[in-house]
């Protein structure tokens, strides 16, 4: 029997921009053959705020709060990337105490970001319960941020050259308590989800992206590791003293949605491991490096990339010798990872597309900037 038997016309519909499972204002134009997706096209830019252009009109210190607003689930990582880029331009390094505190806060941020990802991804698939649990655990981390730097989401925790705020009393104890609180909860999520037949049925074999495709699309982060590539910038080109900490890079085998879920769960455990090591070895000393009040880097350019929760987050800063950057270019992980959506979604069902969008872990504030 030919394929065209009982064939219906192809249907082109919009998914989004106002759709609960597109994680923001992503519009996907779907070409459907019945339930089957035969093509997708992403339309982005609904949340475009021109952050890179704003950077050209602000001084280096003034631009730091704006980078928090790109990936607002991982604001601390964004701040770290920008501060490292400007520090490279200035040729200064944060003092050891500041570096250890930076590692603690970014790793806590990685846990918080992955928790949000887990909650929203589960919600897309239809498992509503974990969302409430992850919010409870995330609260512990946000409380630490609130006490340390005075804000919960868009933290502006780091400054160029080190830290603005000294640690508050009981910081170490609270971080340890948060680790002890969160670590068993991750096992609980696994108990809820990992063996669950519906979860496995919805995720296994969906949105497969093998290592070769990942490299072609420039996909980084947990998606690349789930395809079996052991690539983590914290190991490959350590920054902020990551070489001093012991941790493993979790990798998957098949590169499907289920593997990405497992990789991210394991990454949370590894992040807790790093935080536990780091909190034991906070050295005494200054928290701010020798940075002038008015930052005027020499003419030049610097590219620094860090391992943000979603992948490689790069900052390319060009200085023309004035107080304002000549150009700030951001390489956001979710923007690049989103480009693989079409490859993954072709041939799948509409319901699987929701799972695939969820597994990329996009934050539209970062995609559109």
């Amino acid at each position, binding site marked *: 029997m030919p394929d065209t038997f009982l064939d219906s016309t192809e249907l082109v519909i919009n998914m989004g921009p106002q759709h609960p499972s597109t994680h923001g204002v992503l519009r996907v134009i779907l070409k459907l053959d019945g339930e089957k997706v035969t093509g997708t096209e992403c339309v982005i830019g609904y949340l475009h705020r021109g952050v890179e252009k704003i950077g050209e009109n602000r001084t280096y210190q003034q631009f730091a*709060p704006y980078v928090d*607003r790109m990936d607002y689930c991982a604001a601390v990582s964004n701040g770290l990337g920008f501060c490292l880029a400007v520090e490279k331009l200035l040729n200064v390094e944060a003092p050891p105490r500041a570096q250890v505190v930076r590692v603690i806060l970014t790793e806590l941020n990685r846990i918080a970001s992955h928790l949000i990802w887990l909650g929203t991804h589960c919600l897309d698939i239809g498992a509503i319960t974990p969302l409430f649990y992850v919010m409870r655990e995330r*609260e512990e981390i946000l409380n630490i941020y*609130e*006490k340390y730097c*005075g*804000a919960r989401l868009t933290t502006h925790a780091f400054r160029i050259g080190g830290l603005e705020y000294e640690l508050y009393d009981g910081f170490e104890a609270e971080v340890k308590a948060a680790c002890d609180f969160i670590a068993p909860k991750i096992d609980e999520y696994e108990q*809820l*989800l990992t*063996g669950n037949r519906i979860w496995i049925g919805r995720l296994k074999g969906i949105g497969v992206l093998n290592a070769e495709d990942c490299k072609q699309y420039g996909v980084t982060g947990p998606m690349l590791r789930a395809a079996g590539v052991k690539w983590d910038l914290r190991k490959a080109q350590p920054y902020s003293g990551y070489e001093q900490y012991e941790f493993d890079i979790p990798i998957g085998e098949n590169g499907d949605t289920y593997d990405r879920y497992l990789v991210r769960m394991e990454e949370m455990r590894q992040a807790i491991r790093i935080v536990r090591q780091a909190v034991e070895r906070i050295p005494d000393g200054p928290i701010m490096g020798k940075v002038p009040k008015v930052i005027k880097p020499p003419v030049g350019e610097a590219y620094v990339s860090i391992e943000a929760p979603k992948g490689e987050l790069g900052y390319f800063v060009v200085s023309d010798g004035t107080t304002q950057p000549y150009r700030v270019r951001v390489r956001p992980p979710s923007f690049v990872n989103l480009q693989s959506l079409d490859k993954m979604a072709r041939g799948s069902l509409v319901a699987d597309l929701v799972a695939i969008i969820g597994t990329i872990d996009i934050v539209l504030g970062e995609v559109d900037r």
Partner: protein
Amino acid sequence: MRKFLRTIFLIDLIEGLLVTFHYQRPKYMCTDQYPQERPKVAERYRGAPRLNNNPDNGETLCIACNLCALACPEKLIVVGSERNEKTRRKELTTFTYDLSRCMFCGLCEDACPVDALELTQDFELASYTREGAIWDRQMLEDGPKPTKYEF
């Protein structure tokens, strides 16, 4: 065989439900009943701005140096000052803070050399009009006065 039995008796689903029912106990409730109980905000919280007065004589601490206005990324602070002919010093006349554009980054309070401008723990900043979000000197010195609800 074991896997088959696990499938038949829905063990994987029951394991998950154990977690769910475990958290049904009232002692695991973690919702704040705002506004009945108000959250404890951290000491360093960056909320509503405030212009501090000297507690001894009630005069403003601000020396109208304009550093906060220069530090602000959104340029939302306008400091008005006039020179006192007797003391040859600048004195603060007006201070406008546009809260509708503020992102509470804390750069202005970092820049203040005399701790006059401070971001406080007040977090209820809603107003009925857009103009209500533009705070003048009086408002900055008094702080917001949110409605206290009695239950």
